[in-house]
C-alpha cells in the first residue's frame, strides 16, 4: 500500500528524464494495476466503477450563506483527488468527481445526496459542513447504503456505519484545550459564549461539566446570540463586570467579525484578558483581521503554520493550485483527509463495496496527513487526532504553543451529557 503523498518527483514529466526507465519501474510497483482487480470482483453492488474509472460525489454549499466556509473544503477535496489520480488512482482506477451544490439549504442537501447515491451510484461522497446538513443527509445515506466523509469538527453524539468523521468530535476539541488553559493561566472562572444552535450549545454543555467537575473552576456566565448578530456591546459590559479568567467563545459566521472588532474597541485585548475559542480558524481570521485577534488562542487539531514535511508539501500544493493568498483552516485540512482515507480503505478492503469499506475502515492509518499521523478508530468511525493550541498573530497565522498526544474519539462521552 502506497501511503506517501505524491512528491514533485512523482509527477509524470519526471518519467521522461534519462533515469525515467528506472523510475517507471519503481512507479509501476508502487501503483496498483486495475487488471489485478477485475471490476466484477471489486464492485458487486452496481456502483459507478468501470475498468478505468470510479465516480465519487462531492456535496457542499457552493452558494448561499455557508459558501464562505465550505469553499475551502471543496478545494481541499479536489486537490486530494487530483493528487490521488496523479499517483495512480484507486485500485488502478482514476477518480471522476460529480459535484453537487447543497446551496446552504438542508432539504436540498438530502435531495442531492439521494441523486448522487441512486442515479449516479457514486462509490463515496465527500461532503456536508454544518451539522444540520449532515443530519439531513444521514437517513439517505443509511437507507441507500452510501459512504459519507464528513470534514467538520462537530458536537458528537452521533455514529453511523455510513459516515467517516474526519473532523474532531466535541471532547477531542474541548477537554485538552481547557486543561491547557487552566494549567497555563491558572484559570478558575470562565465566561461561555456561543452562537445559538446545536454545536455551540452542546460544546458549552461539555465545557461546563469539565470546568465544574474536573477543573474545579466556575462558569460565571453563559450566553447565546442568534447567527448574524452584530451588536455585542451589552455582552462586553457584562464580561467586564464579571472579569472572568477566560472568555470561552464559540461564535460562528459573520458575527465573529463584529464580536472581535468590538472586543478590541472596548479594550478587551490579549495583554489583560485571555480568550480561547474553538470556532476560529485561518479562514475566519481572514475576515476578522489578525490585528483584532492578536494574542488570543484557538484550540484546533490543525493550523496552517504546523511544521512537518507533510504539511509543507500540502500547503505548497494548495497555494499552487488556489493562489498564494489562499489560507488553510482546520476543516479544510480535515476535508483533504477524506479522499485519502477512502482510497486507503478501498485498497485495504480490495473492494469498492460499501459494506466492505465500512468494515475495513476500522484502524486505517494515514501517515501522510498534514496534521500528522491519523488513524480511524477501531469501533466508532471517528479519527484519533491531536489537539493543538495556536496563538493568533497579526499576520493571520497561528503560533502553535501546545500539542497534545493522540486523543481517542469519544462521540458519546459519559458524564458530559
Amino acid at each position, binding site marked *: 500500500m502506497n501511503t506517501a503523498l505524491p512528491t514533485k518527483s512523482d509527477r509524470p514529466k519526471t518519467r521522461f528524464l534519462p533515469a525515467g526507465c528506472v523510475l517507471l519501474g519503481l512507479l509501476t510497483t508502487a501503483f496498483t494495476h486495475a487488471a489485478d482487480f477485475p471490476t466484477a470482483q471489486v464492485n458487486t453492488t452496481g456502483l459507478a466503477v468501470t475498468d478505468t474509472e470510479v465516480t465519487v460525489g462531492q456535496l457542499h454549499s457552493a452558494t448561499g450563506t455557508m459558501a464562505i466556509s465550505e469553499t475551502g473544503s471543496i478545494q481541499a477535496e479536489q486537490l486530494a483527488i487530483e493528487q490521488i489520480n496523479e499517483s495512480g488512482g484507486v485500485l488502478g482506477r482514476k477518480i471522476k468527481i460529480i459535484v453537487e451544490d447543497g446551496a446552504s439549504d438542508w432539504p436540498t442537501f438530502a435531495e442531492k445526496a439521494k441523486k448522487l447515491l441512486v442515479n449516479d451510484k457514486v462509490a463515496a461522497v465527500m461532503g456536508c459542513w454544518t451539522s444540520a446538513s449532515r443530519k439531513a443527509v444521514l437517513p439517505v445515506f443509511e437507507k441507500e447504503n452510501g459512504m459519507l466523509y464528513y470534514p467538520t469538527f462537530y458536537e458528537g453524539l452521533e455514529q453511523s456505519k455510513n459516515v467517516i468523521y474526519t473532523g474532531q468530535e466535541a471532547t477531542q476539541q474541548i477537554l485538552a484545550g481547557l486543561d491547557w488553559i487552566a494549567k497555563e493561566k491558572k484559570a478558575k472562572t470562565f465566561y461561555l459564549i456561543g452562537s445559538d444552535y446545536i454545536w455551540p450549545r452542546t460544546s458549552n454543555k461539555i465545557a461546563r461539566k469539565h470546568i465544574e467537575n474536573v477543573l474545579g473552576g466556575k462558569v460565571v456566565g453563559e450566553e447565546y446570540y442568534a447567527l448574524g448578530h*452584530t451588536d455585542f456591546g451589552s455582552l462586553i459590559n457584562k464580561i467586564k463586570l464579571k472579569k472572568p479568567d477566560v472568555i470561552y467563545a464559540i461564535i460562528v459566521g459573520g458575527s465573529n467579525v463584529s464580536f472581535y472588532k468590538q472586543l478590541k474597541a472596548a479594550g478587551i485585548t490579549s495583554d489583560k484578558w485571555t480568550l480561547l475559542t474553538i470556532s476560529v480558524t485561518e479562514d475566519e481570521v481572514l*475576515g476578522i483581521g489578525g490585528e483584532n485577534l492578536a494574542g488570543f488562542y484557538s484550540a484546533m487539531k490543525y493550523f496552517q503554520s504546523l511544521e512537518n514535511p507533510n504539511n509543507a508539501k500540502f500547503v505548497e500544493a494548495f497555494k499552487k493550485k488556489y493562489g498564494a493568498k489562499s489560507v488553510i483552516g482546520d476543516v479544510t485540512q480535515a476535508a483533504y483527509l477524506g479522499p485519502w482515507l477512502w482510497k486507503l480503505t478501498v485498497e485495504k478492503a480490495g473492494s469498492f463495496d460499501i459494506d466492505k469499506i465500512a468494515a475495513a475502515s476500522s484502524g486505517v492509518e494515514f501517515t501522510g496527513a498534514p496534521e500528522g499521523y491519523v488513524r480511524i478508530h477501531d469501533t466508532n468511525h471517528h479519527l484519533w487526532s491531536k489537539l493543538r493550541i495556536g496563538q493568533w498573530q497579526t499576520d493571520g497565522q497561528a503560533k502553535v504553543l501546545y500539542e497534545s498526544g493522540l486523543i481517542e474519539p469519544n462521540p458519546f462521552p459519559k458524564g458530559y451529557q
Partner: protein
Amino acid sequence: MSSYSASELYSIFIMQSFAGFSLFSVLLLMALGLAIIFGQMGVVNLAHGEFMALGAYTVYLCSNVAHNQFPSLAGSYFVFAIVIAFFVAGLAGMFVEWALIRFLYKRPLDTLLATWGLSLIMQQAFRLTFGAREVTPTLPEWLMGSFKPSDSIDIPINGVFVMGLTLLLTFAVWVFMFRSKTGLQMRATVQNRAMSGAVGINTKLVDRFTFALGCGIAGVAGAAFTTIGSTGPDSGSRYIVDTFLVVVFGGTSSLLGTIASAFGIAQGQSISGFFLEGTMGKVAVLLAIIVILMIRPKGLFASKVRS
C-alpha cells in the same frame, strides 16, 4: 451585584449607556435612507440592505486602492471612502429608479416584488464580483482603539465615530428636507403629486432625486458599518429586518418618529441584553414592539396628513 464596588458599577453604567446610544445611532443610520424612500415615497424597497452592502463594498475597494496605490492615504482614506460610497450608492439608486421603480409608483405593492428581485440580483452580483467570503477593509488605526476617561471605562472610538456621523447626517437630512427648496418640492410631491406638477415642479425628477438620496444615505450607513462588522454578499438581508422594524415602528412618514423609534428599540435591546441572556433580550424587545403596534397600528408618530 452586591460584591461590586460603587465605582465599578458607575463605570459599567457609563459604558452600558454608551452601548445603548451606539446601537441607537446604528439603527438610525440604517433607517434614515429607508424613512425617505418608504416613508416619503411609499416604495417598499426590499433592496435597501443591498445598497448598504454596496456602500460597504465601496469602502472595501477604496481601502484596497489606498493601501496598494497610495500608502500615504492609509490613515485618511476612510473619510473620502464614505463620500464616495454616498455617490456610488446614490448613482446606483438613480439608475434603479429610472430603469425599474418609476414604472411602479401606481402599483406600490408590486415594488415589493420588484425590489426583492433586485436584491437577489445585487446579492448575486456581489458574490460574482467579490466572492462568497466576507471581507473587511483595513481600517485606519485611529478608528480602532478606545478612549479611557478613567481606568475602568473604555469608550470605543468606532462607536463615537458612527454616532458623530449619524448626528451629522440626521441634521443634514433635516435641513435638506425642511429648509431647502428641493426638500420643499420633495415634500410637496409626496403630499399631492398632481398639484405639485401643476405649480411647476418636475415631479419625475424629484422622484428620481429622492430615491437616489435614500440610496446614497444607505451607502453611507453601509460604509459606517464596516467599522463594526464584516461585509458579505448577503449582509444586506441581515440589516433589512431591523431597518423596516425601525421605520414601521416609528410611523412611516415621520422623521421624528424614526428617530424616536430607533432610540426606543436600541435602549430596549441594550438594557434587556444586559439583564437577560442574549437571545431572550431580543425576544423581549420584539414582544414589546408587537404589543405597542397593536395599540398604535400606525406607529409611534402617525403623521396627520389626510390620506
